[in-house]
């Protein structure tokens, strides 16, 4: 960095993602990730226990309401496992989106004082969210072990090796949508209200609480349009042995997520240059 030449220009190449710069600032990225993870543990007395309670309680409620009362099918899988698989993945996606969508607003103070590539902040948020996902995944694996011990057959399939790809896809989808919204909210503040209930409504368009096989044939494509649906389905198939996906549908999810992430980075980089004048 020493004696490095730089240029400040009014014009900006939309497709210049500044990857080199991100590498220069990798120490900042690492420090922000550590800070975010530590903050998760420090902030409350119960700390990470909330990460267990939230998905478990949601699972209990879903099992009761959608399973016992409404009698929605779970493809023959034990209900708690079925819901938990959907919930932890949806949680991770929505957490990524939610937290990155307020990046400009939350950091206006620091962004107004020092320069560093702004994209570092949403990047660090989405990576540190993975620590929470890992804890919830362990809870899920523990539940599988309990069922296995009780003698209920759970079929883990080799597709499980695609798991890293699922995580990357989910994270980029959440991050991409989040930074698109964060770029838009610098101009339209009322979009922030939309995020809260929008995410809740969106959850019902994925297969968190019902299996894709239970959807009417003519509406299936609509549910599959949500890239999260295919990720949850392949996740269920790899860990529980039941899920409805094709190579095509998974490829669609991966491509849609990549495209959204690219759009997000372009929008973010465009806004970061002058947002401080308008916020």
């Amino acid at each position, binding site marked *: *960095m*020493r*004696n*490095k*030449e*730089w*240029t*400040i*220009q*009014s014009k*900006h190449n939309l497709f210049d993602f500044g990857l080199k710069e991100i590498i*220069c*600032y990798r*120490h*900042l990225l690492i*420090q*922000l990730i550590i*800070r975010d993870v530590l903050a998760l543990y420090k902030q409350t007395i119960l700390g990470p226990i909330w990460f267990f309670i939230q998905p478990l309680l949601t699972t209990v409620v879903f099992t009761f309401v959608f399973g016992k009362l409404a009698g929605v099918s779970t493809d023959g899988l034990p209900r708690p496992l079925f819901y938990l698989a959907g919930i932890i993945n949806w949680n991770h996606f929505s957490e990524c989106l939610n937290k990155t969508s307020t990046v400009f607003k939350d950091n206006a103070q*620091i*962004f*107004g*004082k*020092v*320069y*560093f590539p702004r994209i570092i902040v949403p990047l660090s948020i989405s990576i540190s969210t993975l620590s929470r996902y890992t804890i919830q995944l362990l809870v899920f694996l523990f539940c599988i072990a309990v069922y296995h011990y009780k003698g209920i057959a759970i079929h883990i399939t080799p597709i499980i090796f695609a798991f890293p790809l699922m995580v990357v896809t989910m994270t980029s989808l959440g991050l991409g949508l989040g930074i698109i919204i964060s770029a838009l909210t610098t*101009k*339209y*503040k*009322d*979009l922030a209200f939309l995020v809260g209930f929008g995410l809740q409504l969106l959850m019902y368009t994925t297969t968190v609480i019902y299996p894709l096989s239970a959807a009417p044939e003519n509406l299936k494509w609509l549910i599959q349009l949500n890239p999260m649906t295919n990720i949850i389905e392949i996740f269920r198939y790899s860990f529980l042995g039941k899920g409805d996906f094709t190579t095509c549908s998974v490829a669609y999810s991966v491509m849609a997520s990549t495209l959204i992430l690219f759009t997000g980075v372009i929008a973010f980089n465009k806004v970061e*240059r*002058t947002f*401080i*004048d*308008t916020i």
Partner: protein
Amino acid sequence: MSNIVIRAENISKVYRLGEIGHGSISGDFERWRARIRGKTDPRARISEGGNGISKNGLFWALNDINFEIEQGETVGIIGNNGAGKSTLLKIISRITAPTSGKIKGRGRITSLLEIGAGFHPELTGKENVFLNGAMLGMQRSEVKRKFDRIVDFAEIEKHIHTPVKRYSSGMYMRLAFSVAAHLESEILIMDEVLAVGDKVFQEKCIHKMHQVSKEEGKTILMVNHHLEETDRLFSKKIVLKNGKILNS
């Protein structure tokens, strides 16, 4: 180009007044509806006359600025309120982009804009020092080497493990100045920092700035109001008036 660390070419910055969106979709929608029905915008701001504001609501905070700064110079940026001093520093610090023009430079920049550097209020003084170093692209070990000197200079050994939100404005400023002066950057930018802090500390800062520019060859850019006190510090002055350079 050998010794030049910053070269600004035709820098302009335009702010739009009244023309900016209303910050909400409903606001923009209302305005659009009024326009197609041929009525006046219900939310339009009443235009205010004044310095540099043209009829179409454009405000030229900076207008065609050109200058060169050589390594080791201490540059004072001088002008009345609204002359564009802070805008210029913000553009050089890359906080906001210029509307037109280009700045070429060499070396890392530390900025102290308004009161406080990029401190995070919830973090302790120590954590902030390291975070600030990282924001400059420095490694943890590099910051560690400088850490004791930073705390020493700021005179806040006792409070270094306290979140900075509990600092007094004097302590905050001392730490911010100390971090900026000690971290390894080649260019130091300051916006009226010396206004805070007592006379003793001000003297100490001025002495320190002399030292870093003479001995370490750092380039310093500084906005100043109190001419008499710090006049002797500057080797070069940029005088701004209504977004234009008077002389340099």
